[in-house]
């Protein structure tokens, strides 16, 4: 099966899995800040969604793009669901949790991205990995455009600050 074609058989789905799992995992990992367990959970859900989809809409083409979008939606659904409750503790807790769960790299920018609050990280991924315009990022995150811009601004500031801090050591 080639990209964008119908997954008409189970073999097509499995072939799609083999061809795309690395890409989907990489994308999910960016969203989760390289939290392995969360990444695996997200990837698993994405492929189960794929199976549901091909069962329900066998005529509809699927490809890695569909998987990436589905992966993103699953992550964002969860993110939206947890946003309010996390708001107050997020700044303190998220970074700590992410820092503990995410492996450090040689690049302070990568480490900084990994420990960002999840909504800030998601905003960066949508903006720079998916290359979505800010209004689209806002819609995906369920925020106003204004709020999304401030979110991006703070995420970028955090990454810059982290990079400067590392460089200054």
């Amino acid at each position, binding site marked *: 099966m080639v990209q964008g074609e119908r997954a008409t058989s189970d073999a097509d789905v499995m072939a799609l899995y083999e061809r795309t799992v690395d890409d989907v995992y990489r994308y999910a990992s960016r969203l989760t800040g390289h939290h392995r367990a969360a990444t695996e959970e997200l990837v698993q*859900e994405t492929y189960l969604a794929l199976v549901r989809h091909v069962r329900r809409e066998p005529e509809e083409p699927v490809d890695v793009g569909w998987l990436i979008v589905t992966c993103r939606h*699953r992550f964002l659904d969860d993110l939206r669901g947890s946003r309010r409750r996390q708001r107050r503790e997020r700044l303190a807790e998220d970074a700590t949790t992410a820092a503990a769960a995410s492996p450090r790299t040689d690049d302070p920018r990568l480490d900084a991205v990994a420990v960002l609050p999840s909504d800030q990280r998601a905003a960066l991924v949508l903006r720079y990995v998916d290359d979505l*315009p800010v209004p689209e990022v806002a819609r995906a995150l369920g925020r106003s455009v204004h709020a999304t811009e401030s979110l991006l601004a703070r995420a970028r500031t955090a990454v810059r600050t982290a990079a400067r801090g590392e460089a200054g050591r």
Partner: protein
Amino acid sequence: MNDRPEPPRSEGPDERSIGDAVRGSVAHPTDRFRDELRDTVAAALRGDVPLTTASRSTAHSLEQRRRWAVGGGLAAAAASVLVVAVVSFSGDGPAAVVPATEPSIATTTPVESIRPVAPSTSAASTSIASTTDAPSTTVGSDPAVVAALVDHRWVLESATDGSYSSTSGPVPWIEFADDGAVRGSDGCNVFGARTTIRSTGRLSLDDLASTTAACDETVPQVSFTAAQRIELLDDGERIRLLGPADGAGGSWQFRRLDALAVATESDLVGRWDVLRTPPGYLELEAPDPLGTATLGTCSSSWRVVDGSFSTGFGSLSCVDGSGDVGGALVGVLARGAEAFVDRIESGPTTLLLSSGDAVYRAGFAGRVTGPVMEVSPRASLPSLAVADEFGLAFEERESTALVSWTPRVELTDDGSVVALDLVASTVTAYEVDGSVRWTTPIPAEIDGRRPWDVELGPDRMLYLSYAADGAGSFALVAVPIDGTSAGQAVGVWPTAWQCVETFCGSVRLAAAGVVLDEYGIGEVSVQPYVDSEGRPTGATSAVPATATVTYDVGPRLPTDAGVDDGAGLLLGSFRTTVSLGASTWTFDAYRVAVAEGTYAFFDAQPDGSVASTFTVFDVRGSTSAGDAWVDLLPDGSVQGWWLPDDLGAVVSIAWIGGERYAVVVTFDGAAYRLVHLVPG
């Protein structure tokens, strides 16, 4: 139509560096995960994996899903194992064993709840244990002992083998039924068994059957199913299970959990499994075609107080404890303890619980009394189509050191579309056919602040807020649209930068003046309207908007929604509750594009009751499809529409002259269009 060529992306060096950091991160699945997931996908294709059940809260659900695949779902597996075997207590000697009605977890069993724990009625004062091991007197022969054990949940307090910490993870528990069945949880897996208890306290658990989920490696599993003896302690308040060699192999002490005990944070922290809705509540169709989670996790990082909790769509979450929301559900959720429901301090509670193939609206009887007025399958919503579209001539963004500003576009009541062009430092009003009505320059910067938001006020005055990167304050400036003056500073609005996230910095118009929303958490400020000379033309006032309660009653919504007090004053934002007059309004959506899900509007009275205006509606569809647009109409009803799939990102949508228009940005972020929408 807009034929304007796509402007180049303005991603400065700083943005490129950050973008590289985000894009450059690389991770690979482990071979083990890859293999397991391959097996899972293959099993799903064979139909062995329950696709309507999605676990989103465990790091190990892959293995769990594989294990439970034959059981037809998480709850079903748990439920089926719970009825695996029963034992009758009768006569002397070991109790007679009744064959299990469902001897294997391989059979799908309808989801059932773990029944609520009844209040203690006769705490036993008889110790089961004795110094001899005289045979043949079963626990069933002693009604007092039976009463001491059954109809209670016994939650683990301590374990001598070090396998349990009361500060982490779910609380293991065990229950004895009067028909002889025993069931419990070791903190991860649920088991069922039949038991024999002799008068000496000697205990055996036979025909043990358990779920076999992979469990959190950081939480040691408790092995009390190896118990061989039981002791009744503290006049029936506690029991102790002793392992081999009279406890030398470990002992586990449980306390009796009476019904409706007040839950504490430690009681709530952990993983929760939604089993059923209480009787009498409406069952809704699942709004999420991808399947939704049945599990939720209450993290210790979320404050949980007084047993309160709430749930968002598809997953259970915990009240942050900062409000006065109280939870009041009995027997809906099951975990180590069912004693999570205690009281309501104020206000109604609505829970929407998803079990994968159904969404349950659950609440506390007598509190949420409003009927479900409308349940609108998304597929049944009428569609909107694009009748006309016009390009809007302004640049997409300007990059500063940190921020990419997008144009601010407002559809105004006078039938124009006002756009703040940050490149040209102008504000332009367009007619609905895309032609320019007027253009006026604005200050490009005020004391280091950049334009942030704009509204067209009365008397042909523009009200703009200016914000600085990263911190500090907003400034409100009034600029006449005819260019007769450079503008009048109306006020400076100090605020924390973080509050921008909650929509502060926005400028809204009200009868009394310009609403600065939010001045601080739960507050707004109103600055007076001014004329071209800067003279106030409206009243100055400060309006405390008491954002008293925030409820989770649905998925998050993309909105700047507000509540109108009838005088044109907008207060609050979505998912907040504000007090206006005698009513407290909670709202989730107001003229916004919504994702699929279940949403609710309701009017809560100060006494906690819910007025008749209570609407729950359901929006369904593919997450990759276009949006539905939902209006809460003045009569309290809900109107939903499909937006065209290829419309682009909706920046703003409004009625203009009785017609519906939207400003959208194309998906490549290059062009803005004014779109006239008509029923399609």
